[in-house]
């Protein structure tokens, strides 16, 4: 009996430790010196998916630049409501509407769940059908809307998908952005983390990630293929937005480079708004159906 009680107590304690590791929604966190790799990465994911904000709205413009310098553009309007609701397991809902002429009117609604192993639910408004189609979750290693980011780079990778090692703390050497020729985050204090995917074999063997101490955002990463060769670099410019006295770290620009093809994708986010009180009714199939184009 005593052994059983000890075992139960241990289980409860373990569960509490697990819960304690989860970050509370709608708070702003920053990584601090002395934190372990897991703690830093929990903050990095929290920041990446804007779990600090109740809702967000932004306009995005993506530039697809091939080796020869040819540029194609796509524009989107993106809205997110963060729920962190255990009752129906919903973490947040995203609505992305394409606004550039070639794909104007096309839109996707995505629900992301809290259970880490659960895939997203997605609905697509197809203007050529004038119909909503439920779509299977895109493959994690497929490119995100034809960009140099994969779906998991942008949408689906979770904390639980990798193991982490803190390599060092250092000042970032700076990133020279090819798009605007500016150097970002020169000498910014960073944690350098090695992230290895649990899924094997997988399209990458490891990521080396620089996490900015000021924002908690992963500002730069190098991705290595299963043979250990670097094949992609991703840069994210994080800026702090003051929202009702709270400093929200936001991705203002992303640049992804495929070193094998020489193709680059730049995403510039603008007109960013937080905590406007968006209604959850905007994130339903009916709202998606309202698309007119």
């Amino acid at each position, binding site marked *: 009996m005593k052994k059983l009680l000890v075992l139960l107590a241990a289980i409860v304690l373990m569960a509490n430790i697990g819960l304690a590791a989860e970050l509370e929604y709608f708070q702003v966190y920053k990584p601090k010196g002395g934190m372990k790799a897991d703690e830093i990465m929990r903050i990095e994911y929290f920041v990446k998916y804007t779990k600090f904000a109740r809702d967000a709205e932004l306009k995005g413009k993506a530039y*697809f630049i091939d080796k020869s310098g040819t540029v*194609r553009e796509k524009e989107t309007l993106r809205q997110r409501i963060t729920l962190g609701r255990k009752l129906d397991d919903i973490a947040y809902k995203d609505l992305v509407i394409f606004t550039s002429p070639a794909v104007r009117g096309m839109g996707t609604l995505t629900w992301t769940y809290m259970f880490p192993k659960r895939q997203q639910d997605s609905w697509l408004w197809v203007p050529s059908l004038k*119909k909503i189609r439920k779509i299977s979750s895109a493959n994690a290693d497929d490119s995100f809307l034809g960009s140099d980011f994969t779906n998991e780079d942008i949408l689906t990778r979770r904390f639980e998908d990798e193991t982490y090692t803190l390599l060092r703390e250092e000042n970032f050497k700076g990133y020279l952005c090819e798009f605007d020729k500016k150097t970002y985050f020169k000498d910014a204090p960073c944690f350098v983390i090695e992230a290895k995917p649990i899924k094997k074999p997988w399209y990458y063997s490891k990521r080396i990630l620089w996490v900015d101490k000021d924002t908690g955002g992963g500002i730069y990463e190098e991705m290595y293929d299963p043979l250990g060769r670097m094949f992609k670099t991703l840069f994210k410019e994080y800026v702090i937005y003051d929202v009702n006295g709270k400093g929200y770290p936001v991705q203002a620009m992303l640049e992804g480079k495929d070193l094998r093809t020489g193709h680059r994708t730049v995403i510039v986010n603008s007109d960013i708004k937080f905590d406007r009180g968006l209604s959850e009714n905007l994130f*339903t199939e009916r709202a998606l159906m309202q698309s007119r184009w």
Partner: protein
Amino acid sequence: MKKHIWILILFLLTSLAYAEDKLSFSGSLKNETSIRIESLNGDLTKEKNIVELAGQYKIKGDELVFFTKAKYWYDAAYDARDKLDIAQHYNGHIQRSDWLRDCYLDYTNGPWLLRLGKQQVAWGQADGITILDRVNPVDLSEFWLPDMQDIRIPLWMANINYSPKLNSNLQLLFIPDWEQSEAAYLGAPFVFRSYTEFDAFMQLMMRNGCTWDVKLNPVGHQFNNATWGLQWSDRIGDLDYTLNFLYGHYYNARNVISTSGTKYIVNRNFPLWRIYGGSFNKTFTNPGPMQGVTLRGEFAYYNDEPTYFGNPTAASTKGYKRWDNKFWLIGIDRNFLTRWTGSFQFSQYILEHAKVGRTVAQETYPMNAYTYGPADQVENIFSLKLSSHFFNDRLKPEVSWSFTDDNQGKLSPKVNYELKDNLVFSVGVHYFYGNVWDSNGQFRDENQFYTQLKYTF
């Protein structure tokens, strides 16, 4: 002078609205060219140029929005080829009333959404098969080859939506407008065999001294002729479902032929019918063997569907019966091998009876309305679609194959290539096979190679 002032005022108002982000426009220019493969010298079967222009005006933010879209096209193939010029006016450029593709006012307030005006409404989960998707009539001038949004004929209607709770919606459709479904005119590549057979019979009888009196009995635009639709949408767990009901006049003409001496009288009727049905979809999101799979389906019970019967071997219709037919479909979608998407559908169209009469003398058979060929009591329909994307979404190949258990079908490979942001080039083939009395088989000599070039702005 007065005219110029009005133009100036209109220009200023438009500029102001545009500046305030209230007014937005979009449009496209598209060329569609197709060549009949069977002919060695390559018959030009389509040289269609299409212009579309859409505009949106936000009268009161997102609460009150006006939207309209117009389309005009001209098919020059009918000018170039004498043999297709039997009815150039109709085949080449007639726009009927559907040049106005959308014209409606959206009013959104809390749980209410009202869409009032000319529009199309798509029900159901099927891809390329219209089971519940019967709210609007269809234009089959090019069979089922164009996009569904171009096939549906928009109607003036009140589309009233109320959401009593999150993720649910009750939709009521009141459609006082009515138009009959359209098919290709004689001389066009995709004219139905039933049409050519009937025309040949008419010509033969006229040569023998008979006369014809064809009476079109269109449905009047009156309140008591209105079509009514009702859809309830909701979500149980992660299963989305709808329940549907539609009541109105059939959009496809059903001919009843009688004789009076040497005179043939054809009554083209559009009887009342009802649809009771439902649809569902579910993506398996939790870990397990089905994770990533989307399952979807729909079912319809067609009450009093006007179903042709007659002697299929002579392509002779004797009229129609109002049968209770059923149509159901199950579809499965999944992504695989990183960038490929596969989609499979199986459906059955089940007629109420295999034969019409009970005795051998009375025994007549249900007929395929497209061809006046025999219709199976249970038609098994399959479709498979594979698609992918390469070069950062620039190149998108796709192949779709639909077929039935009668060894007839259509195979359509296609490739889209994005030349520039707003300029997309497509090239593909439609290959039909099967018996001439089957829906696809009737076009087995109309296999086509086609190109499309679309510029959007």
